[in-house]
């Protein structure tokens, strides 16, 4: 079965530094998402992306966050100036359609902000 791939699997950074988390969604999918999970529990929606623009974002997704699809395959999440509370597991997901199709999740990037 096709997979969503994420790199790196672990990222350690200093507070205030910029990080870029990378994702390669499934090739024929049109909708892309970032979620995060703190302490292995609650899964929080960050942003959805379709047709090269953000379709919805949560209150977590403030000005420090941005997403980009720089080419036909990659989908990136940038955190401009990381804070301690940004430490979490970040999951990329994609789907063929937006609301009635299952999400395919990557294995995640564990971000640790020191």
């Amino acid at each position, binding site marked *: 079965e096709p997979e*969503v791939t994420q790199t790196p699997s672990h990222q350690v950074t200093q507070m205030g530094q910029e990080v870029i988390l990378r994702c390669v969604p499934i090739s024929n999918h049109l*909708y892309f*998402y970032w*979620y995060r999970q703190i302490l*292995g*529990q*609650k*899964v*929080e*929606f960050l942003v*959805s992306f*379709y047709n090269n623009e953000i*379709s*919805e974002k*949560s209150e977590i997704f403030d000005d420090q966050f941005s997403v980009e699809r720089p080419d036909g395959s990659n989908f990136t999440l940038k955190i401009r100036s990381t804070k301690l509370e940004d430490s979490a597991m970040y*999951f990329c*997901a994609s789907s063929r359609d*937006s*609301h*009635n199709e*299952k*999400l*395919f*999740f*990557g*294995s*995640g990037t564990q971000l640790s902000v020191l």
Partner: protein
Amino acid sequence: AQSVAQPEDQVNVAEGNPLTVKCTYSVSGNPYLFWYVQYPNRGLQFLLKYITGDNLVKGSYGFEAEFNKSQTSFHLKKPSALVSDSALYFCAVSTNAGKSTFGDGTTLTVKP
């Protein structure tokens, strides 16, 4: 605003016994309901979904879920639990906007 509640943090069952993981939801309009499973250090994996049609939905690994509109519930069930079913289970609801809202998760432990 849409929301999902999973009232139990933990569910413990003996192998071979039936299991139920509870989920209730709140959404404007027609709900699209999903169950996902997460194994340690892995991403979430799709189990099943309800869009329309039969209220009883069958999914992967022998799981099923029953949509109950009057009770706004979508409980996950399996007739006979396996030790390998032990994992973290998430209920989710989405709408036409595409955003999926997840519950807080329920840890299922199946003991031999």
